[in-house]
């Protein structure tokens, strides 16, 4: 089954003619993702990588009926690209762009609530349902189809987790990068809910980090819902100094809140299997399942 994406997902690339977008669209096509069109204002009517390019998402939707859009536009226009996609009726929007101003994201999220679209990111490597569809920038070869669901605030650390799992013979149902920004679309809780109902998924790995309260909310949800599948969690940043932003815009301990220790404590209390050593993510999940 997998969540968010499957073989039938029709993918639009916003900002397709850019360098990064071109590179990754090529990779997605190679993976077998059904990329059906691209949008770059001013380049409508052209073809790029063999795909039709449109001036607006609305035109692309009309012509090619995509249901997923992946956004590669620069930070200053990215929040607006999210709104454009939602306005045109795209159901799942994956925003790769890093560095979107936080107030822009507040506005975009309000807009999304009215339209009812789902957002993954921004500042995310994207989503992959191995063997079915890859929408994002993650290296494809480390993945393999299977039964572990992954939800992560980090990019390369997700690759690390996937690599460990695959090395131990554990495939993934879907791996979702929720993004490293302070304001993101789908969060741990939303995705846990989706994985709960996904028959393919047997266990879920959460990869959190310092900052915000998404992990605490996940802990609360897992506890209150008597979450029916085993969950393991790693939270990065136990050694992070307070008040410093560690790479991700959202990774900061502020006013004494958002530390990794606190998050791990809450997750532990919710019955989540805590992973202390980031080199043992795969092994922990293996032990958990078997």
């Amino acid at each position, binding site marked *: 089954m997998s969540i968010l994406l499957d073989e039938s997902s029709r993918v639009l690339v916003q900002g397709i003619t850019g360098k990064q977008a071109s590179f990754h669209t090529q990779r997605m096509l190679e993976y077998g993702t059904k990329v059906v069109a691209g949008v770059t204002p001013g380049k409508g009517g052209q073809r790029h990588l063999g795909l039709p390019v449109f001036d607006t998402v609305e035109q692309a939707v009309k012509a090619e009926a995509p249901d997923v859009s992946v956004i590669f536009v620069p930070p200053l226009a990215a929040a607006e690209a999210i709104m454009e996609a939602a306005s045109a009726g795209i159901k799942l929007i994956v925003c790769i762009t890093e560095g979107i101003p936080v107030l822009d994201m507040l506005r975009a999220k309000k807009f999304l609530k009215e339209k009812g679209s789902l957002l993954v990111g921004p500042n995310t490597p994207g989503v992959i349902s191995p063997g079915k569809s890859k929408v994002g920038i993650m290296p494809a070869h480390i993945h393999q189809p299977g039964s572990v669901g992954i939800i992560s605030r980090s*990019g390369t*650390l997700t690759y690390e987790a996937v690599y460990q799992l695959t090395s131990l013979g554990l495939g993934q149902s879907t791996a979702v990068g929720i993004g490293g920004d302070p304001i993101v679309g789908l969060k741990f809780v939303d995705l846990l809910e989706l994985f709960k109902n996904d028959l393919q998924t047997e266990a879920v790995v959460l990869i959190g980090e310092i900052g915000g309260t998404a992990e605490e909310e996940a802990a609360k949800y897992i506890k209150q819902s008597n979450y029916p599948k085993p969950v393991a969690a790693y939270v990065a940043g136990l*050694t992070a100094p307070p008040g*410093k932003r560690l790479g991700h*815009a959202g990774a900061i301990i502020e006013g004494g809140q958002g530390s990794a220790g606190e998050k791990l404590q809450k997750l532990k209390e919710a019955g989540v299997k805590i992973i202390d050593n*980031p*080199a043992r993510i795969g092994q922990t999940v293996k032990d958990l399942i078997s």
Partner: protein
Amino acid sequence: MLIHEYQAKEFLKHLGIKIPEGGVAETPEKVREIAEELLVPVILKSQVLSGGRGKAGGIIIARNPEEAEASARNLFGKKLITGQSGNRGLTVRKILVEKTLKIKREIYLGLTVDRRNEGVAAIVSSEGGMEIEELARSNPELIKKEYLSPETGLLPFQGRNLAYFLELQNGAFNTFIEYLRKLTGFFLSHDLKLLEINPLILTEEDELVAADAKMDFDDCSLFRHPEIAALEDLSEASPQEIEARHFHLNYIKMDGHIGCLVNGAGLAMATMDIIKYFGGEPANFLDIGGGVTEEAVSKAFEILIEDPQVTSALINIFGGIVRCDLVAKGIVASARKVSLKKPVVVRMEGTNVAEGKKILEESGLPFHFVNNFEEAARLAVALSRT
């Protein structure tokens, strides 16, 4: 991006929000001069980018100009060690000299992006002068919040809700709402993440005066606010940090012995964590980022390896967007330049890993290759002690 109190107060003044009379000085003589003009007891406030300046001895009352000059002489050049400054402290280079106020009440007023509620929170408390997080834990009933939409800003009833909560009267009631409206407008139009006036003083004359001001701007928005970006004070940044910034590297100096060079913020944190897990101490956080160049990798390696505290280094690359061969080239160039003597553990996976390793091996430089993340960390910790 944080700006100094005196800079934040300039913005307040422009908005029509009362601030104490005073001026900024860079010399004791100038401090005395300002104190003479103000004619009354003055307060000297060290301008460093940190809270907790009072506790650290950075804020001093002076009863006359002579005292002001003498105190300033002590302050200038002093290293203030606050909760946020690290052990090295922050050097006092500027002092804000202000007239003291006749205080009837101290109020807390803050605006912040609230991650959980995904809105802008306006926060007030009748207990100004305290840290709001502290107060939120000890006396949450003394705090009131209103969530503002980034589009509508402050609705009139929200202003009234807060003003009535603070039990303000007459002129101060309306002034408070007007201040809040202006501050909200400024917050939204200038992309702030945090704006605090703590305390906002209700004077004995029933005026509201901003006795302190903190403004933290969203780094991601600075491209559209060049006038704000220009206010950045880099005097406290180390040359390494400034260089790292120049190359778009996320570099933060820490107190340990093992230098880290990693791609991706999460993996960089995890690398620090695993070093600690095996009993070591990371010397830095370093995320080279996704769009890194060979030159930037060189610089990154140079920064961490030339840190005198560093006794070993751990390079942990999971190639995705970043190609292992590009990283390898950057490191080799840099290692040759600095004539590498410290042990360097390299763990590489992902895009072009074979090419990357080949470049490192063929360089003839003494790299330790470990394929396993855990083994790499163990080795780096062990080597840091030899």
